[in-house]
């Protein structure tokens, strides 16, 4: 009985490996296992080489691993590229039709088991389910929920195919890949993007504008799929500049409003971000990072846009930036982002990346009753004649009203303005308005999510990371030989409150920043706040996600003094 398995399905784009992968993942989660999915795909629609890796465990799994227990090869290239990663007691399953003679390969007669190529996915699912010992009802149920709505006619056929594949696999008598029973409650199956989507819905998002861009396109598309049900307006804009300006317009009009994009698209939004800052209009901006500069590697992962997001937009205005580490944090922090955007009346950012955006995990279902009311503007004021959108207040925050819903007037201006919103070149007012805008920093400062610490009380070495590297780093400290490595993870990367973390930096012998970029951008931010003695960096920028093994290898090298 295995406690854990890493299953990699590989093939060309267009061979449907995501469908097998997702069905399998769902079946595993419904069977009570923990999963961690890593998707790797090329920037093309057919051909090339893509993989879908499901790591499944009786206990929590939180990082990609390179060692493969079961390799499912839909084409020859997959065997060639990945066989050296298959463990000694691992298994390579391949389509019978792949002409490849090599010891120890198990052939699956996809063509024989499926009435047509459309059903080959389900053959894979059936085979794997039997192999690892899932109850057949589990993959069956998944087929029903996934195909049931879209194609009720094909459900029965699929189940038949599943059955024969399952039976065929049992007949093969391959032992040693059955998973131990798990006690986990079956939860949700969510990617980082899904976490953002559900968070936005829970926060009452009304409007989302976007221009398609990997890896964030899925967010507006999922919101749109529920548009009718929840009354969410999602508009595909002509370009990213339109998207951000639409979102700001909708926010002015009273909708909880957001955009989702990636680095290049976000670069185009910079002027719009500044508009949100100047006009004090709440907007939530999701930036799913991928390797740059320019078009870079459109379907891979990186954490290279922190600096850009931190300073995007000309001029000076406050902002908050979250860097969620997993789908749960995506959910929680998206809700928080909407609330904070409204309370600080400005842009709030959520930085994800392709790895997190596409990585499915099993998630304990959210308790929606726990979610506190998200702040919103108003439609009433005591003295409509005197209402001023930018009234000077002690906190810098002025009451925000929704235009046309009452007899007051709401005037918003991208130029410097009087409290009533009209354009001015009065330089004393200018100074007051700058002060007003910057004062709102206090709203953000008062509500910073502190970093989370994991590990021994007095670690000798401290790993520091942010965003999606949480899982890999967590596994790294758990797997570290000596029990003296701690981890500090930041899910909010701006603003920072030194008091939240300075003590963590004082005692360890070595502090190692773990980031998926080449510059160590977050390290620079932290070192602005606290003096870090003996700081090191573990960086990755080949487009693949960080993983525990990668971290530990380099940690060892660092500890041996090699840099």
């Amino acid at each position, binding site marked *: 009985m295995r406690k854990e398995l890493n299953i990699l399905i590989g093939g060309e784009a267009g061979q449907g490996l995501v469908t097998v992968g997702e069905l399998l993942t769902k079946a595993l989660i419904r069977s009570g296992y923990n999963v961690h999915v890593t998707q790797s795909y090329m920037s093309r629609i057919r051909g090339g080489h893509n993989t879908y890796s499901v790591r499944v465990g009786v206990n929590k799994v939180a990082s990609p691993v390179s060692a493969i227990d079961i390799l499912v090869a839909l084409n020859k290239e997959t065997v060639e590229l990945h066989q050296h990663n298959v463990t000694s007691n691992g298994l390579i399953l391949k389509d019978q039709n792949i002409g490849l003679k090599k010891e120890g390969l198990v052939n699956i007669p996809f063509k024989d088991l499926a009435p047509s190529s459309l059903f080959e996915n389900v053959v894979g699912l059936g085979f794997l389910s039997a192999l690892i010992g899932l109850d057949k009802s589990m993959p069956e149920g998944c087929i029903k929920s996934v195909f049931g709505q879209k194609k009720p006619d094909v459900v029965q056929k699929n189940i038949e195919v599943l059955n024969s594949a399952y039976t065929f696999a049992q007949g093969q008598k391959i032992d040693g890949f059955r998973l131990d029973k798990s006690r986990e409650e079956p939860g949700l199956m969510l990617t980082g993007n899904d976490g953002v989507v559900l968070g936005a819905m829970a926060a009452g998002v009304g409007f989302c504008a976007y221009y398609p861009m990997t890896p964030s396109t899925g967010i507006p598309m999922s919101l749109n799929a529920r548009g009718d049900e929840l009354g969410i*307006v999602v508009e595909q804009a002509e370009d990213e500049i*339109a998207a951000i300006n639409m979102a700001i317009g909708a*926010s002015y009009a009273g909708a909880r409003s957001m955009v989702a994009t990636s680095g290049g698209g976000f670069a185009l939004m910079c002027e*719009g971000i500044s508009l949100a800052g100047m006009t004090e209009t709440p907007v939530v901006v999701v930036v799913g990072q991928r390797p740059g500069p320019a078009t870079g590697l459109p379907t891979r992962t990186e954490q290279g846009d922190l600096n850009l997001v931190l300073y995007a937009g000309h001029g000076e205005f406050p902002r908050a930036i979250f860097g969620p580490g997993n789908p749960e944090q995506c959910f929680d922090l998206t809700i928080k982002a909407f609330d904070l955007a409204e309370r600080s009346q400005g842009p709030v950012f959520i930085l994800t990346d392709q790895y997190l955006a596409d990585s499915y995990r099993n998630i304990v279902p959210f308790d929606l009753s726990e979610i506190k009311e998200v702040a919103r503007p108003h439609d009433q004021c005591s003295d409509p004649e005197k209402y001023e959108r930018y009234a000077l207040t002690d906190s810098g925050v002025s009451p925000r009203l929704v235009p046309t819903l009452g007899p007051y007037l709401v005037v918003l201006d991208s130029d410097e303005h009087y409290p009533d919103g009209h354009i001015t070149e009065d330089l004393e007012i200018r100074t007051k308005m700058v002060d007003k805008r910057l004062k709102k920093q206090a709203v953000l400062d008062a509500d910073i999510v502190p970093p989370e610490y994991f590990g021994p009380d007095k670690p000798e070495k401290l790993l520091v990371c942010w965003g999606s590297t949480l899982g890999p780093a967590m596994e790294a400290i758990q797997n570290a030989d000596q029990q003296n490595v701690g981890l500090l993870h930041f899910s909010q990367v701006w603003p920072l409150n030194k008091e939240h973390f300075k003590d963590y930096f004082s005692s360890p012998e070595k502090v190692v920043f773990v980031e998926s970029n080449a510059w160590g951008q977050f390290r620079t931010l932290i070192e602005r706040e606290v003096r870090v003695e003996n700081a090191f960096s573990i960086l990755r920028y080949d487009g693949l996600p960080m993983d525990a093994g990668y971290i530990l290898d380099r940690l060892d090298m660092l500890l041996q003094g090699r840099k």
Partner: protein
Amino acid sequence: MVSIDDFGKFETAWCPGCGNHSILKSVKKALVEMELSPHECIFVSGIGQAAKAPHYLKTNVFNGLHGRALPAATGIKLGNPGATVIVQSGDGCNYGEGGNHFLAAIRRNINLTLLVHDNQIYGLTKGQASPTTFMGHKTKAQPRGNPSGPFNPVAVAVAMQANFVARGFAGMMDHLSDLIVQAVRHPGFSLVDILQPCVTFNKVNTFTWYKERCYELKDHDPGNWSQAMELSREWGEKIPLGVMFRGNRPVFEEKLPHPTGEPLYYNIPSKEKIKKVVQSYA
């Protein structure tokens, strides 16, 4: 009863004699005629001399970025389909920096009215060629004459079958305010391109220049696309004014998921509904 005074009196930053003054008056007149109260309208603009216009109206104002009035207006209208949303900005703003949004707005056909103060020049930045400046027109920035051909907004809008396409002239205020009323009342996206003399920087297309050329359309059938297309070419010795084209493409708002007319502000889904969605991820 709404009156002109309801829309306030403001000191403007415009040159004396500028065509913007009369456009502002025509707008006010149109609003009164439509009996729109100040708080029912949202005026959206970009940046430029023309784009300051909403500041001289007592109403709701969204004065956004140069070139980006239309996307902002789109978001506003989608957020609150019941509001009367009118976009007012310059030729540079709408056809230059904002050219892509102009195309998209026509395609979307949201119930917005776009008033372009078309002075065939960049006014606020002191007289560079705009997209509508004639070829060969000399400016400080184009000392050898403007090398590009002019953008013909009416021709493009008609070619794209924009729902309502008209041309007005700042020098004919009653005619103009009537066009504005028609534009606002017509469903879908409406364009009124308004010839606006810039007394300071455009010494070619002066008040007299326009005056000598403009004539009111009489027997034109705005439902006739081919005729409108032909008319759109008439732009030089004679300049036709009036409604050039009127279409009946379906309006975008009809396809919105939420009940038309209801502001998104009021549309708050119940926790039950959210819960159902969340459960579908199990």
